[in-house]
């Protein structure tokens, strides 16, 4: 592989690394932060399942991003991923909640504008609706799930230590589910823009498993996520754990499971086919924000407990993020593409 290809892929891999560093905390943050699960256990489980999720189920959301804008040149894909990564960095630096999903969509629109490609309004609307639906759905899943779990636990009368042991085990299983869903749903953010311009070729492993060029990209992106998990997520996990101390370990489990279900629902081609076969309306496969799913679930549990102290400012900031993040990423991508085309003389569409 040419060195230039690796350099171009670098921006996507950096985006993957930052996703691993930040979003792994949504899956294992509470468990590790409250010392219910060891960081090493969390990191290994998270990495393995992110990779599996990305390679096995990553195609669905990638297709949706492809429909929004098929970036067909490697330098342009590089710039889109870089614009998304820069947006994430800038927003994080200003302590604004940011989603990689929203950043990459903005960057793709930036490329569409620059290259004069039309932006499919229908696809864009579908994506925007999904973003709003994601935290809502997480909250709607969390509330009945919590009530069910509470009822079961009350009936079971488990010893405090037994419950502790079961909760640890359940947190690891939920974390594995969460990591798989994260890989499946969010790999499109990391390397999705590189798929139409993939430098890889399909090959068959041992004569039966077809390893497509997209899957090779997904594997590479997932490895970047795994490196992010191992190198930087511990700090974030400890912070999340300490910020959410008011959640009992069981409530934390409910939050992780709700988050995982939402991410899975918006990534699963199998579920889409199942609904379609049954003549039911299908759920769009769209990369959504893992952090917003977690916030949605926590707010749902908070409302259920009748707390009046929901921090509306946090919800407001998320709504602002829905608008600012894509706009910012689109602007950076547009300027970046201009520089690549006119200063570095690279073909970007």
């Amino acid at each position: 592989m040419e060195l230039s290809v690796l350099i171009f892929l670098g921006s996507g891999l950096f985006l993957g690394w930052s996703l691993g560093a930040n979003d792994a905390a949504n899956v294992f943050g509470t468990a590790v932060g409250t010392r219910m699960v060891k960081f090493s256990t969390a990191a290994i489980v998270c990495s393995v399942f992110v990779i599996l999720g990305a390679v096995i189920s990553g195609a669905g959301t990638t297709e949706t991003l492809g429909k929004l804008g098929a970036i067909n040149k490697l330098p342009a894909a590089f710039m889109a991923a870089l614009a998304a990564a820069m947006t994430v960095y800038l927003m994080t630096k200003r302590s604004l909640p940011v989603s990689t999903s929203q950043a990459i969509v903005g960057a793709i629109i930036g490329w569409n504008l620059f290259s004069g490609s039309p932006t499919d309004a229908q696809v864009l609307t579908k994506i925007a609706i999904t973003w709003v639906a994601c935290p809502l759905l997480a909250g709607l899943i969390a509330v009945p799930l919590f009530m069910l779990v509470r009822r079961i636990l009350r009936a079971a009368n488990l010893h405090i230590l037994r419950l502790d042991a079961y909760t640890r085990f359940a947190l690891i299983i939920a974390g594995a589910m969460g990591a798989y869903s994260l890989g499946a749903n969010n790999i499109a953010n990391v390397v999705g823009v590189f798929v139409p311009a993939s430098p890889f070729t399909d090959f068959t492993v041992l004569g039966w498993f077809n390893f497509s060029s997209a899957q090779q990209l997904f594997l590479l992106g997932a490895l970047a996520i795994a490196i992010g998990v191992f190198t930087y997520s511990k700090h974030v996990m400890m912070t999340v754990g300490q910020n959410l101390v008011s959640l009992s370990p069981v409530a934390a489990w409910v939050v992780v499971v709700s988050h995982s279900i939402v991410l899975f629902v918006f990534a699963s081609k199998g579920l889409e086919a199942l609904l379609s076969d049954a003549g039911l309306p299908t759920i769009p496969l769209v990369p959504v924000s893992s952090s917003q799913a977690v916030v949605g679930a926590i707010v749902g549990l908070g409302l259920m407990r009748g707390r009046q102290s929901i921090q509306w400012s946090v919800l407001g900031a998320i709504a602002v993020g829905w608008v600012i993040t894509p706009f910012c990423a689109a602007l950076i991508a547009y300027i970046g593409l201009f520089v690549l085309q006119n200063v570095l003389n690279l073909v970007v569409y």
Partner: protein
Amino acid sequence: MSFAISKTPSLFGRTKELEGQIDEFLDIVTQTGLLFNRAIDIYLDKGPCEDFEELLSKASEVETRADTLRRDIENKLYVQTLIPDLRGDVLMLLENVDNIINRYEANLFRFSIQSPDIPAEFNQGFRKLTEQVIHSVESLVSASRAFFRDTNSVRDHVRKVLFFESEADRISTKLQRKIFASNLDLSRKRHLQYFIENIDEVANSAEDVADELAIYAIKRII
């Protein structure tokens, strides 16, 4: 056709062992209460005697066992980082309950060292007081077991502790009035009062622990 049952994973195995240790610790509280009751009964019947000393030595033995168990449980809770959210509460509960075992033992030592001369007319009062004190501690043991297994019933047991404690207070006051109204020397009256107050103090401690337990239970409700 039979299937081999897979070995319990170590996490669950360790948990089971620790559950057993906590149960044993609470069993010791009950056992010390029974020894205390029997020892006071014998003392009131026969005064200082060998049987009483034997019961005291048994109470000392189980108290030492309780201390060892408590330290081992605390150590495991910390080393294995178990129940991180409730560990502080559990440790406090175990230490406070252990303190009640110590109070039982200390009372018996007081009888052994000071050999108070209790006139027979007050025996009934001492017996009733001891009975209520033991009931209050027994209810605390039930409340503690409920805290570990059935949080919703903690409240019921706590209420019983409070009831028996106030009964013990009532009997203690009545007994002291009777003693101070008698013709005994003031020094003997004060001596008996000292013993009554110390026995009653066991129920007071049980009440304090029960109050804390009620709060721990609220925190535990998921």
